[in-house]
Structures are given as structure tokens and as C-alpha cells.
């Protein structure tokens, strides 16, 4: 009996964003039926994958509370993409390069975690530092030039598809399932909620608060690395200018999906839906032939309206 209650409670939380996503999609499809062509849905899927992966990482960081956010993913996409391209064009095999990149991005997460847990520097500052440093390093490595000539086996990471669904979407689904499992079904997930809810009490209950926080940053770093590889494969090159502002959209995705910025609350599914809404907007505005000058205006409004409606809906239901 208790169980049922909880479940109904859960599916409920993401209902608002899901409705928002579906109505936006339906609206676009009605006005421009070409929205539903497989090619366009694949385009959309690829975009959702990138934001979705980042948003999952942010969800973990934000859930640990204490005002933690990770500002680095956008720049990290550029840096890891550039580094991967550099490695691959310097003869390092694709799989080795990918592993090195993922190890590096987890390492950056450890760096963030170290500053936040051991030195008690606010996450905002240390990740803002990485935002700036990673952006700078990409420029240093490339002098602004794209690194091209990536092996075609690597490009499959974005451009390949299985039963018509692009590989990035599969990656998102896989990571989503794993991370959702971590968040809801493991001790780590419960500890994360506890730390986000009341750090002191969590500590008094024997939760290793520092380790929990450290892991959230490692996850976020890892996710940025994955997204960086996908983007590099997508562009067939390492591009130093890519990904700016992605972190803000990733955080917004998480919040649209129900993650509380004060910690303790959040869901993987919600964040993916949030990311889908933002990605859909990018696509739909072109589909609907909205003048480019108005794109930003519409995106800003939809974000605010989506969250507002969701807040109001939850409030009305008590």
C-alpha cells in the first residue's frame, strides 16, 4: 500500500514537464508536419542526447545541496572534444583516446570535488574557474583552429544509428537508466538525498558526506566527457568554440525537470525531459519559421512559463 503511494507520487512529479514537452511537440507537428520526418526526429534526438547527458550530471551535483552547481560542462565539451581530436590525429587509437578523455574528465570532477570538500571553496567558484580555464586551454591548444581529420570509426559515435535510432540517444537511454538506478535504488542515491536535505544530520547518521559530494562531481565530469566526445564526433572535428552556455541550459533542464536548487530533490527522468524541452525549442523555432531575432525571446519565455506552470500545478494539488 505504501509502495503504491510512493510510485504514484513519483510518476506525478515529472508529469508537468512531460505535458509541456508533448504539447510543444504536438503544436509544432500540427503547424509543420515535416517535424515528424525521421530525419528531423533523429536531429532532435541527437540534440536531446547532448543536453540530456549534461543535465543528468548537473542533477547529481545540484541534489547534493549547499548551493552546488557545476558551471564547467559547456567548456569541458570544447576542451575534451579538442583533446580527443588531438589525440586521434596524433595516432592514438580511438578507444584509447576515448578512455583517456573520460579519465581526464572524471579527473576534473575529482579536482572540483577536492576543492569543494577539502578546501571548502564554493562549487560556483571552482567550476567557474574550470569554465574559464577549459575555454582558455581549448584556445591555447588550437589557436582557434578546428582540429580535423578524425578517424571515421569515431564519427560513428554520433552519426551511426541502431534500428533507426541515433547512437547518442542509445547512450542517453543507457546512462539514464544506470543513473536513475543509482539515484533511486542504491544507498548512494539515498545518501545523496540525505546530504542535500541536511548535511549535518546526514553526517551524524554515518553518511560520508565528502565522498558523496566527490562522486557527484565525478559523475558530472564524466557526463561532460561523454558529451564532449559525442559533440566532437558530431562535428567531425575538435572545435574550441563549441558548447558555450550549455551549462546554463543543462542546469535549467534539471530545474525544469523538478530538481530543487537547494538540494535533496531531483530525478533523472525529469532532467531528461527538461533537456528535451530546451532541445525541442531549438528545433521547433526553425520548423515554425520564427524569425531568428525572436528565438531567444521565445526560448526565455518558454523556460519561465514551463517552470511557472509546473510550480502552480504542484501548488494547486497541495
Amino acid at each position: 500500500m505504501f509502495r503504491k503511494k510512493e510510485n504514484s507520487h513519483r510518476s506525478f512529479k515529472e508529469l508537468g514537464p512531460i505535458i509541456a514537452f508533448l504539447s510543444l511537440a504536438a503544436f509544432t507537428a500540427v503547424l509543420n508536419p515535416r517535424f515528424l520526418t525521421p530525419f528531423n526526429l533523429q536531429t532532435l534526438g541527437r540534440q536531446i542526447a547532448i543536453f540530456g547527458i549534461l543535465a543528468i550530471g548537473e542533477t547529481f551535483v545540484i541534489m547534493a545541496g549547499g548551493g552546488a552547481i557545476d558551471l564547467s560542462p559547456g567548456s569541458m565539451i570544447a576542451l575534451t572534444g579538442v583533446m580527443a581530436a588531438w589525440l586521434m590525429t596524433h595516432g592514438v587509437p580511438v578507444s584509447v583516446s576515448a578512455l583517456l578523455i573520460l579519465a581526464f574528465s572524471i579527473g576534473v570532477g575529482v579536482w572540483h570535488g577536492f576543492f569543494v570538500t577539502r578546501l571548502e571553496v564554493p562549487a560556483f567558484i571552482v567550476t567557474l574557474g574550470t569554465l574559464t580555464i577549459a575555454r582558455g586551454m581549448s584556445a591555447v591548444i588550437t589557436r582557434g583552429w578546428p582540429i580535423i581529420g578524425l578517424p571515421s570509426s569515431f564519427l560513428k559515435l554520433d552519426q551511426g544509428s541502431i534500428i533507426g535510432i541515433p547512437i547518442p540517444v542509445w547512450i542517453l537511454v543507457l546512462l539514464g537508466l544506470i543513473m536513475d538506478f543509482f539515484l533511486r535504488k542504491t544507498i548512494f542515491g539515498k545518501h545523496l538525498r540525505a546530504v542535500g536535505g541536511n548535511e549535518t544530520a546526514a553526517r551524524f547518521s554515518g553518511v560520508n558526506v565528502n565522498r558523496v559530494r566527490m562522486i557527484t562531481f565525478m559523475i558530472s565530469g564524466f557526463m561532460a566527457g561523454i558529451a564532449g566526445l559525442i559533440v566532437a564526433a558530431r562535428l567531425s572535428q575538435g572545435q574550441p568554440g563549441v558548447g558555450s552556455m550549455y551549462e546554463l541550459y543543462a542546469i535549467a533542464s534539471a530545474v525544469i525537470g523538478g530538481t530543487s536548487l537547494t538540494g535533496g530533490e531531483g530525478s533523472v527522468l525529469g532532467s531528461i525531459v527538461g533537456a528535451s524541452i530546451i532541445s525541442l525549442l531549438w528545433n521547433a523555432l526553425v520548423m515554425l519559421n520564427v524569425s531568428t531575432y525572436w528565438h531567444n525571446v521565445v526560448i526565455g519565455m518558454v523556460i519561465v512559463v514551463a517552470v511557472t506552470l509546473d510550480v502552480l500545478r504542484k501548488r494547486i494539488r497541495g
Partner: protein
Amino acid sequence: GKSVHPYWSQVEQGVKTAGKALGVETRFFVPPKEDINAQLQMLESFIAQGFSGIAIAPSDPSAVIPTIKKALEMGIPVITLDTDSPKSGRYVYIGTDNYSAGYMAGTIMKKLLNGKGKVVIGTGSLTAMNSLQRIQGFKDAIKGTNIKILDILNDEEDGARALSLAESALNAHPDLDAFFGVYAYDGPAQALAVKNAGKVGKIKIVCFDTTPDILQYVKKGIINATLGQRPYMMGYLSVTVLYLMNKIGVTNTLMMLPKVGNDYVIDTGVDVVTPDNLDEYLKMMEKLGIPIKF
């Protein structure tokens, strides 16, 4: 310079090479992203440091006027490259302005489409002057034809978004005939989108800059033409002119330069690279000492 971009690193190469050849100390700076305020800030720091000559590519022609005037008052010769600011009192302008380059892109597009078709433009900024001028030139060139601009897409200097937008545009406009790419990564993004959609040959692409990936697509015939503004030349000539101004004086230098009306302008010209003349272009670049490999 204006921002971290392959274009500006070519300018830098020109500046460095000229500096070495002439034996003068040169410094090259760009803000990480187009930001006129940051550029002014930098310009003022340079003035404060007392350099003996400044060449600047204003992110905005009018915003820099007071600062350039200040520099001139302090006896520092100032010239502009790439983008001009004629009212600032700068001595010379070196470059091809973006408007003419955009105009030329439009002319090429007109020819490619035989004066009829639908075009989508991709750019990284709706506010940066170079983007605005290239687009304006393009629009003016196709005026009076049956070429219609369906949409301008702003990717906010994000290559991945440029790709998504190009793909979305292909989906939204099945009858699209051509893309025009304004920033260096726009052309390749459009080429990739066209390739993925299996529309190579059906959709023409005209774009800017000569980064290796663009030339690669030119070679494959996916990009039909790209415009190079010869940034290397701009950098090289700027240093040379400033060097002369210091050596033999401003007036004497100006006397040697081409006069346009009452003004001094060195037109560095535009390279139009197409699948047909690609080899020629590569050879020429090699001769200049900046080989492009891909």
C-alpha cells in the same frame, strides 16, 4: 583582433612574420569572444603602455572613435585592419571590408543559383559588425533577383548548435536550394548537414574563411565556394605600414599608399576558392609561407 578564431590566428601569423622580418617587437591580442567593451579595455591598456603604433580591427567602428582619437592625440599612429572606422581619424585602412566580401558572396550565389532559389543563412552572431556587414552585402548583391532568404540562423558562436540549426533548416524547408555560412564553422556545419541528409549537389553552399575543413569540403564539391579575406596579408601589411610610419614619418608613408578620394585604403582583396581553383589557391598559400594541410 576581435575574438579567438582561425581568421585572427592567421592575422597573428602575418603580424609575427612581419615583425621578425622588420626586427620590431609586435604584440597581438584578441578577446576570447567578440566583446566591444573588452576590446576597448585592451586598446586603452595598449595606449597606456605607450606602443609606437597600433593596428586595430574594431568590433564596432563607432565605439572605438573616442579611444582612437585619444591615441592619435598622444602621438601614437593608429590604423585599422579588417574592419574600418573611417570617422576615427585613423591614418589608413588595410583590408577588404566585410560588406564587399559579403557582396561578392552574394554575387557568386546568384551565379550558382541562376538568379532563382531559396537560401538559409547561418551565422554566429546577430550583433557583431562583421556578421552584419557580410549579411548586408550578401542581401544587397541578390537584390532584384528571384533569390529568397528563408531564414537567418543564429548559433551564438557554437558549432554544435550551427549543425543542429542547419539540420533543422533542411527539415523545415525541403525546397531549400542553398546555404550561406557567415562564420568559419558555419560552412562545415552546413556541409555536414547536407551530407548527412544525402542532398549533396542539390544544395549549394557558399561560405567564408579557408580553414582546412572548409577546403576539404570544397575539394569534395560539397562547398561550392568559399571566400578568403587574406587575413595574413592584413597582419603583415599592418606591421609594415606602422613600421614605416615610425621610420619615415606618417606623412611620408601615406604618400606611398593608394589614395581613395581623400582617404587612404589598402585593399587586400578576396580569394574565392572553388573546387576548380583549389589547387592553385593552395600553391599560392604555400608560396606565402602559410601552407594549409588537410
